[in-house]
């Protein structure tokens, strides 16, 4: 039983670590703030969530596990909001998407609104 638990914890820690590392690699490699937010919000959340669960499982205490689960829940609630606000602030500040971008209906809508303004 303890071996199984140790194995589960180890798998969770390593998987979480790999996801977090790849999230960091993504933030460096992706071309602009919008695509970077993809890596930070998704892989980052899953990575930290898995590691929190590993910590909770390893302790074998209800109190610690409850805290870990609450931590994961708050991560899932807050990480997308943060990514959303960073992307929104960047777009409002006029930060252009990468040249690879194929479509920007938000900029089109803004241009339309500016044209219609007296």
């Amino acid at each position, binding site marked *: 039983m303890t071996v199984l638990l140790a194995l589960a914890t180890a798998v969770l820690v390593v998987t979480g670590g790999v*996801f977090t590392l790849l999230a960091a690699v*993504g933030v460096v490699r992706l*071309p602009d703030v919008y695509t970077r937010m993809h890596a930070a919000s998704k*892989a980052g959340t899953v990575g930290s969530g898995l590691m929190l669960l590993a910590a909770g499982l390893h302790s074998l205490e209800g109190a610690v596990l409850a805290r870990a689960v609450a931590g994961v829940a708050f991560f899932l609630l807050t990480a997308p909001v943060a990514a959303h606000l960073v992307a*929104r602030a960047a777009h409002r500040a006029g930060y252009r998407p990468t040249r690879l971008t194929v479509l920007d209906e938000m900029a089109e809508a803004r241009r339309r609104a500016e044209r219609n303004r007296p």
Partner: protein
Amino acid sequence: MRRLLAPAVLALAWAAVTGSFAWPNLVLGLAVAALALFFVRGHARAGARPAAVRPGRLLSLLALFVKELALSAWRVAVLVARPRMVLRPGIFAFPLTVTSDFEIALLANLITLTPGTLSVDVSEDRRVLYVHALDCSDPAGARRGIAEGFERKIMEAFR
């Protein structure tokens, strides 16, 4: 009854964060929740709360979410680990069918945590959600995917 939902959820969150579900701690959590809700009372508007909650549908939404989250983290990880990244990013407009603040906020959060999409902004009239996609070669398909997936499930769970 539904007025007690928010304090109860906040009290449970308090108990989980402080790591004790004993009665005195739950009562303390309830007091803190009441105080916190008192401070934000002016900001809670009508529509910030779901019209109804269907537990079965909510579970189905949650299951879909966990699956999509795992898939999305996997895809981003695979994408950035490849030597040559294939990207066709873009921002498309998603016409919203859901109307209340609560539903829009939930949908925006779910979109951000699912494969290849990130919500960027909501139009001022709350009719359009702007979504950034890593692969925007098929915006019509992406729109259909959100409308038939999360948006429909949100409406089923909270109406």
